[in-house]
């Protein structure tokens, strides 16, 4: 195999599984170490740089980082990354003086942002400091978008939401509330230098079955949640059926319990392994005695004299092979009585307000055609991000889309190429302090994942906005931070220094190192000390070693970053170095690529 090019930032980035898994590339191990040192403000700011809403995401993020976490590969649960993010947010002091500020002198460019959700707010966050005027149009009387009206307050308290939204609005964004944009043409005619559409995917999917329109008691999940959030609905029947098992379904069932429902069932068509909802959201719902019923396919709404009596379902049986449904059978039918039905079977974006003759093209599914790098539509100067761009994803994706769109908007306004983008940067710094001393907690702590404490069931339903999760206490935090393996403290190898004494191979607790003769990949993997289990994980292959012309091979999959290889190396051929990865944002394009240190590089690793 060819010598691995570790100067490509992607190599070490991929080793930091959580950061690689996070759409916004949050430097997770770095902020966890900062929390360990009690530096909550710094931890918060590291988060904010990438994900903009640490307090919000520390509660409700989809957490793609956690299934990716290396710790989960050692027969254990991943580090509670999301909970730790909340620790940083909950314990931070006043950080307002560390927030980006908009200059008094504007640059004369004006950008319209449609929708006041996470995507538009992030664009404003990135462009306001550069002197742009950002004008947000929000259909509701408050900002936040789906973060406010699709996520119930018992999961995300309003104070948390307001505070982080205000950080951005207070920078000087102009926001028009109760202002639904009805015509893209009219908006374009107002002469903005760029338009960003971040209005989400606001249409809940329908379930057209007999009886659907014969009663008032069938609701579309996201609309229903919105009505609850704005106090238009404050009660629901005693028996409620939720159709669908995504995260919206989980929010609907738990909200129902808080509006007076006593018996809530979530009806799933398929078995559990096919559920879309995050495992923890399912667990939280079941803890509140929501019943999750599998293999029931909706057949009919049973309505008598305009009154909903219940629903009938077909009982399903599936033949499953290799995690896929091969065949299905209907084995019977049941009727389940209920007072209300809430449909939570997905949502889609819809743009009735965008005229089809503006040069903004749509695909046959009525989705806008959006460039995956620049987020520009087929009409120059019109950008999409968040759920508007590629359909429903989640908040963290919306934030990353918006970071990228902000770069494009800036380039567009400056008359520069959108495709020309700055590369990600990698900076490595040794963490060696002395003989057996590393400036990170290198010892492996076998502790198990800490459990989030919840408000007791009997107190939970007192008020709709009572937050259920209590957050980690000091003891839990102290334990959990030590579970992080510090994957960003990289094992960096200099082949010219190696004397092939095998000390690193022998000390490695996971046998992830091998010195062997080189060969192509299929051949090489047969000679590794431990079998390759994850082919997605990179293999490091050194250059030829001096004494025997063999190569050092490292399977990154099982490295626990304990630093023992470096500690045992007599010639410092192995070293432990922090990989500080920087991902350019709009601000980095201001000074131009050749003018020395970019703003994104100003953060120094702790």
């Amino acid at each position, binding site marked *: 195999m060819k010598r691995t090019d570790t100067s490509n930032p992607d190599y070490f980035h991929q080793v930091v599984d959580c950061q690689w898994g996070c759409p916004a590339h949050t430097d997770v191990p770095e902020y966890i170490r900062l929390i360990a040192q009690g530096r909550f403000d710094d931890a918060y700011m590291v988060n904010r740089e990438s994900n903009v809403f640490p307090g919000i995401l520390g509660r409700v993020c989809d957490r793609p980082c956690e299934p990716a976490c290396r710790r989960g*590969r*050692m*027969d254990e649960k991943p580090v509670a990354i999301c909970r730790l993010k909340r620790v940083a947010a909950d314990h931070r002091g006043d950080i307002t003086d560390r927030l980006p500020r908009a200059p008094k002198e504007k640059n004369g460019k004006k950008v319209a942002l449609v929708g006041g959700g996470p995507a538009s707010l992030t664009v404003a966050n990135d462009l306001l400091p550069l002197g742009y005027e950002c004008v947000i149009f929000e259909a509701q009387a408050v900002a936040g978008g789906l973060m406010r009206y699709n996520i119930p307050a018992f999961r995300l308290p309003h104070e948390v939401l307001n505070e982080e939204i205000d950080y951005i609005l207070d920078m000087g964004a102009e926001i028009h509330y109760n202002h639904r944009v009805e015509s893209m043409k009219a908006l374009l005619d107002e002469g903005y230098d760029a338009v960003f559409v971040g209005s989400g995917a606001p249409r809940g999917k329908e379930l057209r079955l007999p009886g659907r329109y014969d009663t008032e008691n069938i609701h579309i999940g996201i609309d229903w949640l919105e009505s609850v959030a704005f106090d238009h609905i404050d009660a629901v029947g005693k028996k409620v059926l939720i159709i669908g098992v995504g995260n919206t379904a989980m929010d609907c069932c738990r909200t129902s319990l808080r509006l007076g429902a006593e018996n809530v069932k979530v009806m799933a068509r398929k078995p559990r392994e096919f559920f879309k909802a995050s495992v923890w959201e399912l667990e939280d719902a079941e803890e509140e005695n929501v019943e999750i019923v599998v293999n029931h396919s909706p057949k009919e709404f049973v309505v008598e004299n305009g009154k909903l009596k219940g629903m009938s379902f077909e009982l399903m049986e599936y033949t499953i092979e290799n995690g896929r449904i091969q065949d299905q059978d209907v084995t019977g039918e049941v009727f389940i009585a209920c007072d209300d039905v809430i449909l939570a079977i997905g949502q889609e974006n819809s743009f009735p307000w965008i005229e089809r003759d503006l040069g903004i093209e749509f695909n046959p599914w009525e989705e806008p055609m959006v460039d995956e790098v620049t987020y520009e539509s087929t009409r120059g100067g019109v950008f999409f991000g968040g759920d508007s761009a590629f359909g429903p994803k989640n908040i963290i994706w919306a934030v990353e889309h918006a970071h990228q769109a902000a770069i494009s908007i800036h380039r567009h306004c400056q008359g520069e190429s959108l495709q020309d983008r700055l590369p990600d940067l990698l900076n490595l710094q040794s963490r060696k302090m002395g003989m*057996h*001393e590393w400036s990170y907690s*290198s*010892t*492996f702590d*076998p502790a198990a994942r800490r459990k989030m404490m919840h408000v007791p069931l009997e107190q939970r339903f007192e008020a709709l906005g009572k937050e259920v999760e209590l957050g980690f206490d000091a003891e839990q935090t102290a334990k959990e931070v030590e579970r992080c393996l510090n994957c960003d403290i990289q094992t960096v190898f200099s082949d010219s220094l190696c*004397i*092939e*004494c*095998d*000390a690193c*191979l*022998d*000390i490695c*607790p*996971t*046998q992830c190192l091998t010195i062997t003769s080189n060969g192509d990949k299929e051949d090489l993997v047969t000679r590794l000390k*431990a*079998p390759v*289990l994850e082919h997605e994980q990179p293999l490091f292959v050194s250059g030829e070693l001096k*004494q*025997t012309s063999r190569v050092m091979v490292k399977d990154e999959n*099982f490295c*626990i970053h*304990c*630093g*023992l290889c470096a*500690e*045992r*190396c*007599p*010639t410092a051929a192995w070293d432990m170095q922090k990989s500080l990865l920087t991902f350019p944002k709009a601000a980095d394009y201001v000074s131009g690529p050749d003018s020395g240190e970019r703003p994104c590089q100003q953060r120094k690793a702790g």
Partner: protein
Amino acid sequence: MTFARPKINLPGQKVNEIGLALRDYEGSLSTLCAGCGHDSITAALVQALWEMSIRPEQLIKMSGIGCSSKTPAYFVHGAHGFNSVHGRMPSVATGALAGNRDLVGIGVSGDGDSLSIGFGQFGHVIRRNVNMLYLIENNGVYGLTKGQFSASADAGSTSKKGEVNQMQNINAVATAISMGASFVGRSFSGDREQLVPLIKAAIAHPGCAVLDVVSPCVTFNDHEGSTKSYAYTRDHKLRAVEADLISPRAEIKASYYAGDTHPVRLHDGSTILLRKVDPDYDPTRRNNALGYLERHRSRGEIVTGLLYIDQNVTDMHSQSRTTAMPLKAMDYERLNPGSEALRELQKGMK
């Protein structure tokens, strides 16, 4: 500061015939210098003992004094052990194995421990053919006392400071062969592929198996001018005969016999397969072996592999016609029949 090597449950971890993982054959974390060849040999011992499925409580590890002599602490936690005085490991080993012939004995020594202060003991344990692995971790210096030349340092090689060694060296393998050893091998800490099978063959051999393993001292003897450095050893090493141990249960594949291969059957039913890398070499004939070693020594080459084997030398227990039952298993009354029995015995001698 790192205090321990963490135990991590990895998926797909293999176990041996008695259900133990490789890591169950480890000992305490080494306190030797990082990169010391001795640590590599420790790892090879762990590998060999694991592959042979030796029960930890069946093993006794013994040593004298030196960095090398510290290493028994670093493998097989659950084994017996005795760290004796400088150069006296052979006496302790002889006693231990006389008392319990069922033990698997491993003595780890250094070039200083065996070829200087313990030279006499070294000769006699070979003569008695005590059933053990006698492993010399040979670095050409007294590592523990900060790098003085040892008796195995080659004449003309230099110390770290540049001082030239004037004295002739004692060649451990040639000495052992001439003293009538029944099994003699040489290897290099940096050649695990050769070392592990050699250790296995040595342990299986029913007599005193001497292994001289070049083991660079990174701190005091890994410089230019040293003839025991990693680089020098790699450059001058010559493989003469390789050995593989085939357990009695394993079938012997035809492919093993490819080339110049000779099986040596052991009493326990296992087989040591000798594979001649150099067809001129005959490890079953003493004069051939010694002549070959001398020819290559004069060219500056380090001959490695299984250098001499003789299955017909009787071991200590056969020489003394001791009972088949380990003494430690015997009832006290049988072991020590009392003064009456002694008088009876003496009567017959008058």
